[in-house]
C-alpha cells in the first residue's frame, strides 16, 4: 500500500482575477510532494465544494484578493455542509484584514495565511493537518 499522497484543492471564487499568489502556493505544494488540483478563476462556492468532493482532497485552500471573503466563505461552508463534506479543512490565503481573522475562524476556517506568510509555513501546516487525521480512511 502506498503512503497516502496529500491532495490539496487550490481554488479561486467569485469575481477575483488575481491568481499569481495561488499559483505560487500551488508550485510550492507540488514541490513539497503534494498533488494540487487547481480550479482556475471565477468558481462558485457550490462548484468548489463539488470539486473538493469529486477530487477527494485532504484540504481546501482558498485564495481571496477581492475583499469578498466574508460573503463567499460562509457560502462555501454551506455548500460543503449540504453535501456532507464539512469535515474537509479549509484554509484561506490572500488579502484578508486582520480584524476579520476571528470572524473567519468562527465560521470554521482552520487557518489564515495573509501576505508575508512563508511558503514553508503553509506546506508544514498542511502536513500537520494530514498527520493529525492519521491518514485517510
Amino acid at each position: 500500500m502506498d503512503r497516502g499522497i496529500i491532495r490539496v484543492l487550490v481554488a479561486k471564487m467569485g469575481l477575483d482575477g488575481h491568481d499569481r499568489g495561488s499559483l505560487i502556493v500551488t508550485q510550492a505544494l507540488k514541490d513539497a510532494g503534494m498533488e494540487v488540483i487547481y480550479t482556475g478563476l471565477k468558481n462558485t462556492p457550490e462548484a468548489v465544494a463539488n470539486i473538493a468532493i469529486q477530487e477527494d482532497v485532504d484540504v481546501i485552500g482558498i485564495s481571496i484578493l477581492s475583499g469578498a471573503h466574508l460573503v463567499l466563505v460562509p457560502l462555501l461552508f454551506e455548500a460543503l455542509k449540504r453535501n456532507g463534506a464539512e469535515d474537509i479543512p479549509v484554509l484561506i490565503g490572500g488579502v484578508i484584514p486582520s480584524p476579520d481573522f476571528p470572524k473567519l475562524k468562527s465560521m470554521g476556517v482552520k487557518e489564515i495565511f495573509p501576505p508575508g506568510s512563508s511558503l514553508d509555513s503553509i506546506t508544514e501546516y498542511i502536513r500537520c493537518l494530514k498527520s493529525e487525521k492519521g491518514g485517510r480512511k
Partner: protein
Amino acid sequence: MEENKSVNDIVKKIKEGHVRSIAKLITLVENHDPISVGVIKHVYPDCGKAHLVGVTGPPGVGKSSLIAALIREFRKRKKSVGVLAVDPSSPFSGGAFLGDRARMVELSGDKDVFIRSLASRGMAGGLSAAVNDAADILDVFGKEIVLIETVGAGQSEVDIAKIAHTVLVVLMPGYGDQIQALKAGMMEIADILVVNKADKEAADATATDLFVVQGLKSKRDGSWAVPILKTSALSGEGIEELVEAISNHYRFIKEHDLLTKKNRERRTREFLDILTRQIRDEFMEQIEEDQRLRQWVQKIGDLELDPYSASEQVITMIREARQRKIGKETGPKPEAAQES
C-alpha cells in the same frame, strides 16, 4: 472482519450513487489499498456498460478544453459523463499540478458530470495505474460516457489504446508535416483524428496532410475509415460532428464484434498484469522467509547460475505441481467473489 465491513459498506454506497464514496474509492485505488481490491471483486460483474473514450495528443493542443466542449454536447444529449484527467507527477518531488479542471470550470456544478484528476505517479505510458480500476468504478456508478484524458503524450505514450474503446488523437494546425504523421506510435492508435483550434490559420492544410497520410496507412479496426475532423473548442465549431463520430465508432465496433474483442483483450491483459504482479510479490515474500530459496537466488548474483535457467527451473516446478494437482482433481475452477 473490519475490512469486509468496509468493503460491503462501500459497495452499498456506490450502488446508491453516493458521490463522496466513489471519490474516496478512487483514492483507495490510487493508494493500492486492499479495500479497493475487495470492492472491485464485488462490482466487477456490473462493469461493461460505459463507452470508454480516450483523448490523447501532444501538450497544448487543447485536450482539456475539447473535453469540456464534448461534455457540454453529451449533456445536451442527456448522457451522464465521467472524466478521468491524467497529468504528470514530478519525478523529483512526487507532487503534481493537476490543472485540467481549470478548463472545465462551469461543469463542476453539474451533478451528472463527475470529473477526477489523477497524477501519473510514475507510470510511463501516459496514464496512471489507477485508470483501469477508476474507469470501472465510473462505469458501475452509471456513467454512460467515460472520457479519459492522457498526459500531454509524446510519440510512444499509447497505453490509452489498451483501455479505451474509441481513441481520439488531437492535433492542431502547424503540428507537423506528413513525415510526423507517418511515424509509428500515436498516429496508429487513432479511431478519430481531430484538428483542434480550427479557428486558427492552416487548419485546412493540417487536415489535408493527415488525409494524404491516412491513405497510406493500415487500419486498426478492420474497415473503419478514420475520420479527420476540424474542431474549435473555443467557438464550439465541429463539436456536434465529433460527438456524432464518437457515437458512430461505438456503433461500428459493436456491429463488427470488435467491442467484445476489445473488452476481452483489455480484461485478459489486466488479468495477466495482476497475476504477474502477485506472483512477483509472492516470490519476494518467499525469498524473505525461505533461506534455501534465498541461497538459490544468490547463486545468480554470484554468476554460478544464469537467470534464464533459474527462471526455467521455476516454470518447470510450477508445471509439475499443476500436473500433480490435475491428476487428483478435475482442474482449477474459476470462482467469483462471494456476496457476503
